[in-house]
């Protein structure tokens, strides 16, 4: 047991301090000295505004309030060159959005709205993973659906043959 044990107390304290803040104030992501309390929260729920999973994936960031570009360089992703890569991108986008909520929820485990969103994205990612594994081979070693050991099949993720 230690002084950080009581989540509830901390959560309430934080909710109150957020409520005093303006709605959707622009939060600099903290690259140059931000104030976390001025996060992009609104009055009704803690969860900030989110990009769509695909937009988030391309940007590397699910949270518009945290996004900060560099030198006007547009975020870009290679065009999927076949159906396999297209499905992999779809899986990647939903898995990424779920992962972003995972990190967020580590700090705010009582945000039910965020848990709901996490489950929604995870479900879509799992569906894509299953479809991919049926068509192209395993993503995880437990996903070998074929009669031979397709885990060893090439290409591996770092190969762009």
């Amino acid at each position, binding site marked *: 047991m*230690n*002084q*950080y*044990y009581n*989540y509830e*107390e*901390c959560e309430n*304290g*934080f909710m109150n301090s957020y409520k005093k803040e303006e709605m959707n104030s622009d939060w600099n*992501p*903290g*690259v140059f000295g*931000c104030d*976390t*309390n001025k996060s992009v929260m609104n009055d009704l729920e803690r969860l900030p505004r989110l990009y769509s999973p695909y937009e988030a*994936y*391309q*940007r*590397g*960031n*699910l*949270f518009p309030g*945290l*996004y*900060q570009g*560099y*030198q006007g*360089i547009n*975020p*870009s*992703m*290679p065009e*999927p*060159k076949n159906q396999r*890569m297209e499905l*992999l*991108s779809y*899986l*990647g986008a939903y898995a*990424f959005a779920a*992962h*972003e909520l*995972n*990190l*967020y929820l*580590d*700090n705010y*485990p009582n945000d039910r709205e965020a848990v709901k969103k996490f489950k929604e994205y995870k479900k879509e990612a799992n569906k894509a993973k299953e479809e991919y594994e049926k068509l192209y*081979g*395993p*993503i*995880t*070693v437990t996903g070998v659906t074929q009669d031979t050991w397709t*885990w060893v099949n090439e290409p*591996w*993720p*770092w190969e*762009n043959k």
Partner: protein
Amino acid sequence: MFAYQKRLQFPIDIKKKDLKMAKMLLSQYGGPYGELAASLQYLNQRFSMPDGRGKALLTDIGTEELGHIEMICTMVQQLMKGATFKELKDACLGGHYAQFDHALYPTDASGVPFTITYTQTTGDVIADLESDMAAEQRARATYEHLMDMTDDPAVLGPLSFLRQREIVHYARFKELRDIYQKEMKK
């Protein structure tokens, strides 16, 4: 324990050989502010986090960094693909060829091998989280230096993704530091 996913966190498809860029990118593999150092630092510090939030955040970000090591290695390998010895030598990678051929080895951009002394741990939760915040900022700055050195969109895309991850991780570490600090004052 850990389970591998046979996919990159973000797609990478580099067709244009660029040995000088490959050499610079090594900084984010085995360099002082690289992904390997970040991953090991967080996965090590998590054992002394005071509660589930810290243990979860350091586990999850430390694990994501393992995926970033894979992305950096992928970029280096694709940038070096098909390079001859002479080309490597002209790009100041002659020493790399002598020791490692076309293989990967965790060094910084100048060929200095990775050392665990690049990582920080104190066992003090505030000091540790602030070292993590600083690590993310240093990595962000390094990604910006790397982005300055290329105009290949196939390289810029993943670099921009990785840079953005540093910004999000920084924000999460800072939030957690603030939460812990607030609770300590009570």
